[in-house]
């Protein structure tokens, strides 16, 4: 079965969704990602969904679940590159992904995770805290 590749980039994991996700793929991603966070000790997860054109309620819930799982494993999730149509669909479905951080593109998402980004002060503070704990 197809798998979505998970790349390690510094202390973060980068997941780029370039194909249309179907349900089993999304579930496999959740498993792979949680395992990878533990093995690499990543502090942040960047999910790039700029290639995703179609979402349904399941996919929206999946993003929420992945974020919740990552948070439990002490990694921040940032969803980046959402298309306008996808955003509208999710809002109309009533899924505003309140537990997930968002950014416009991978660059800004990475800045949000590494914390050197001016306006993302909230995110950077969280990250520094978790960094301290991680080293200890």
């Amino acid at each position, binding site marked *: 079965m197809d798998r979505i590749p998970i790349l390690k980039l510094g202390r973060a994991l980068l997941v780029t969704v370039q194909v249309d996700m179907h349900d089993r793929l999304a579930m496999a991603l959740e498993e792979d990602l949680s395992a990878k966070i533990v093995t690499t000790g990543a502090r942040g997860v960047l999910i790039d969904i700029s290639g995703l054109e179609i979402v349904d309620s399941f996919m929206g819930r999946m993003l929420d679940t992945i974020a919740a799982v990552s948070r439990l494993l002490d990694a921040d999730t940032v*969803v*980046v590159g*959402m*298309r*306008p149509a*996808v*955003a*509208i669909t*999710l*809002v*109309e479905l009533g899924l*505003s*992904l309140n537990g997930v951080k*968002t*950014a*416009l*593109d991978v660059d*800004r*998402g990475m800045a949000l995770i590494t914390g050197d980004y*001016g*306006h993302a002060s909230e995110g950077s503070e969280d990250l520094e805290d978790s960094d301290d704990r991680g080293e200890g």
Partner: protein
Amino acid sequence: MATILSSILEAHDGEVLAQWLVALKASGGTGGGRIKEGELQTQCRHFLDALRQALATAKNSDGNIQGAAFEDVRELLADVSRSRAAQGFSPTETASFVFSLKQPLFERLRQELGGDTARIVDESWQATQVLDQLGLYTTEIHQKSREDIVARQQAEIAELSTPVVKLWHGILALPLIGTLDSARTQVVMENLLQSIVDQGAEIAIIDITGVPTVDTLVAQHLLKTIAAARLMGADCIVSGIRPQIAQTMVHLGVELNVVSKASLADAFALALQRTGRTVVRSKLAGTLAART
């Protein structure tokens, strides 16, 4: 039945046309000179021709104009009516194109049939039936074309009334004007999200100074827009909430759980601050002098 009418139209073509034109001008069917003499004559002549043929070929005498025989007449009238509507004629002015034909036609009937009163009444009734229906048809088409124009203008207003303005690098403003309904919210949302992508904006300021009322529905639409923008990775600031509106919202129990500022300037200042910028006055003396 209608053969007498069609034969009249055939024999006295020119006179009827001339009298009709006079009646048309008298009844205001020219719209105060908005239509050219030559154009009007051509339209009238074509209409008379088409009417004559229709009357000659129509089989039954019930004066129904929906049949195949009247197809040319209907088409011609529709064209005339549409062009009148586009030129801004009132329904009365448009309908008098047909109705002003009655007088010359009845005149002619009386002359043709002499003292046969019963027949005159009969024929007049037939002619009235046909002309009334044609007149109503004209009005209907006129109305329809006006409605088309209104619908098109509404679409244009919807398009125009939702501009997305770039205030600074990465800072967008969305001045909303008019009531937000579902259809407009959709347009607003799409415009805003597309602009966020195109310009890589991080902050969008939604200014609702021009929104007359904010009820629960409007608030919900606003929240939807804000949620969608957040999903794309942009923060929203709401500005321009007028005092009365703020009171109404609180009384209604509407809660906008977003950062809001009283004026667009305040919101812009906050946006600049969040993106790590400050506004500094460069020439103190110059600005003071300009102010006094």
